[in-house]
């Protein structure tokens, strides 16, 4: 088994543990490369099926192509697709692009709060009706107690401290100073009412591993990651006001891998295009303690 085989096997193992232990299980799908790899791992873990609903938090500032890609794959792969949104903050224009919030506050409103309330069922969930080809109000409002997220330890400091199974409190809060022991692939799967667990199958993967795996498995990935003649491409997908494309002429997966291995990105951090990380030096930790992915 090579390194990718080992990573894949561990990811599958974690997904199956989650599926075994959590009745109200959901997988966050941001449409980006990591959570799409996660989705692929789910198809592997469950032998072609995806028995776990997928949830997308729609900030409305996503590039329209992302939503198109999401819905096409959802229909093709027969996914149980759900989205949630902070419609109030959008109506009240409590966002960074509208000028009424800092980048971090905007993230808190459109992502953290939307995530928290969609997970708990307090806010509406919209589910894809495959027959009608459109989203309808979801009748299931039970809280999700297991939330699968595609974060990687190499992304930034607070993620490097994560567990595969990481508890969140009643307010979605993360007590990073007091995490449970995690021994020999026996994970924390018991939880008090009102709390939930975040599950991180990709913790040991690097950005390079992700691309190598996409190449090996031929995973259909959204084309915003590729240069289409402008000399620019996205390295990390977020909301367009806060995520800038990078200068790169990679037009396919093989070229991206080359760029990461020995080319211009071999020593530049992935999230360097994300502006919200820069507002305060522990900005992401602050967000994540509050329930951000």
């Amino acid at each position, binding site marked *: 088994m090579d390194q990718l*085989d080992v990573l894949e096997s561990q990811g599958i193992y974690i997904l*199956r543990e989650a599926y075994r232990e959590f009745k109200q299980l959901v997988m966050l799908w941001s449409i980006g490369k990591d959570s799409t790899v996660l989705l692929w791992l789910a198809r592997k873990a469950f*032998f072609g099926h995806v028995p776990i609903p997928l949830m997308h938090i729609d900030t409305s500032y996503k590039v329209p192509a992302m939503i198109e890609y999401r819905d096409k794959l959802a229909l093709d792969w027969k996914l149980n697709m759900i989205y949630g949104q902070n419609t109030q903050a959008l109506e009240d224009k409590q966002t960074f692009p509208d000028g009424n919030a800092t980048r971090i506050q905007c993230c808190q409103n459109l992502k953290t709060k939307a995530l928290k309330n969609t997970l708990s069922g307090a806010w509406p969930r919209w589910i894809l009706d495959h027959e009608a080809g459109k989203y309808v109000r979801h009748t299931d409002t039970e809280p999700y107690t297991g939330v699968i997220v595609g974060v990687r330890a190499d992304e930034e400091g607070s993620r490097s401290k994560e*567990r595969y199974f990481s508890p969140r409190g009643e307010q979605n809060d993360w007590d990073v100073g007091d*995490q449970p022991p995690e021994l020999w692939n026996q994970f924390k799967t018991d939880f008090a009412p009102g709390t939930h667990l975040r599950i991180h199958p990709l913790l040991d993967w690097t950005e390079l591993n992700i691309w190598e795996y996409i190449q090996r498995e031929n995973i259909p990935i959204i084309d915003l990651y590729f240069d289409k003649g402008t000399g620019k491409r996205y390295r990390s997908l977020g909301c367009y006001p806060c995520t800038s494309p990078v200068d790169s002429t990679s037009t396919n997966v093989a070229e991206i891998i080359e760029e990461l291995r020995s080319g211009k990105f071999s020593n530049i951090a992935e999230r360097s295009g994300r502006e919200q990380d820069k507002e305060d030096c522990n900005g992401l930790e602050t967000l994540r303690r509050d329930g951000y992915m």
Partner: protein
Amino acid sequence: MNDNINDKNTNTLTTRDQMNVVVIGHVDHGKSTVIGRLLADTDSLPEGKLAQVKANCKKNSKPFEYAFLLDALKDEQAQGITIDSARCFFKSQKREYIIIDAPGHIEFLKNMVSGAARAEAALLCIDAKEGVQENSRRHGYLLSMLGVRSVAICVNKMDLVDYDKTVFDNIVTEYAEFLKAINLEPKFYIPASAREGDNIVTNSAAMSWYTGPTVLEAFDSFEKEAPVTDKPFRFPVQDIYKFTADGDDRRIIAGRIETGTIKVGDEVIFLPSEKTSTIASIEGFNLTSQQTAIAGQSTGFTLDTQIYINPGELMCKVADVQPNMSTKIRANILWLGRHPMIKSKRYKIKLAGSRMPVWLRSVNTVLDASDLTTSSYAEQVERHDVAECILETLKPAAFDLATQIQQTGRFVIVDNYEIAGGGLILGSVEDKTDRITEHVNQRQKSWDRSKLTQGLRSGQYDQRSALVLVTGPADSGKSDLAKDLEAYLFNKGRYVYYLGISNTLHGIDADINDASLRDEYLRRLGEVAHLFTDAGLILITTASDLDDYELEMIKTLNSPNECVVVNIGENRFSKTVPDMQIDSIKNSDVAINEICELLKAKKYLIEYYV
């Protein structure tokens, strides 16, 4: 199902290996600094990272520390201490590493152990000036307990002792003696200064007396353990899938192969149920068809026969050496819980794929890992103790000895919602008694008996009391049959009572609402049954999907009174032969008649022929 098959040979993947190395040692002995230095001196940091950390230090008027490259949390930087283990990714010429920076403070021992349990190799740091400290020893012991064998010792902060060889030699002598006592032999002792960069990545001019490897060279010299394909086959069943979408009719036994290899056609046995079958196929997605599978793979199998097994069983090859099976396990436990581990409390054990209730039966010895002193009179296991204990489960667990097959020889203990301890299995224990039998003996001894004996009651009622337990899969019509049986016997003048499951759930079990407490529901059912049978009645009740051990518990709790087992539908017991097996209830009158004949034959219904 296998859409999107692509040829794996068309791309140019270079295979590299990856190794997890943990860095441990007493608090403040420089673990994070060593790693920070290693990253910085090998140009492994993302561009701008070093400058950014330096700028942040300046902004907050703190001196720069290499450790801040790892200690990313606000609290860690504020206190200058590592709180939780961090993973960091690093590549040498030879291979890729995930380096785990563990905390040294005793308060965060659970985080250190979480890091060390993931590691294949370790670097243990000792401060040259402070020398060997409590957690230098405790961490060393835990490495040996966790089975990490590739170890190097870094005597750090040599700059503080003027790079003096005698200081180094004294520490080596002292620590080597300690490690010898716990049977751990490090590959290297390296004098270093993380702050100055001596012997981390480059050799040290200040310590020309040292000719051994640098920390980086030591890492590269660690050998990766080969996958355990040469051991007996062990496959903890994680789950059993039957996804019916798109006409999929496969019933797949899913899990990860911990050790050994298997191929299509191999005969397998599931433990503890002891059911056997043959591998029909190896399943996967986006894979071409597979005939063999090996240790490390997360995979799935279909079987030749439809047997009823549960997640958590251990699948082994019939031809291999079999694991142990026992309800009593002797193990070395490291306790991390906030509350001590005590007898009389119900915990949960997670051992390979199985999860079950477990009790602490006895504590043999308790070790203080920081000085290797032991005591043999402990009644409980305190936080951070390492204790040799006997644990008891209700049903037999299938396991190996940790020294033989690590993967199926270790477990964790869950206290309430928290993982509170980890253990390595030393052996099984021959012991004839068990908790339930001991309890029933005690109960019978203390029972306050009335003036009416069982004989008097059965004479008056013309019946011998019994528990009629109707078992079988859910929805097999058990409770309808049980109610009909009750009415029939009642009309014949018998003293009989039907106890419905929801009557106990909403009555005596109203204080517990947790499916994982199944054994507790069944224990109470057994105790309640004993009251009814003690009163001379025929009690009829139902229970779905009982296994042999659960049935045995109910019978024991109902004893000395008797029990009649009527199984409806598929018989999922592996050892128990039910007193009566009814494949399906076509006509309930016929079924009731058969049961009554059985009750008469067994002399529960006493008949007088005149």
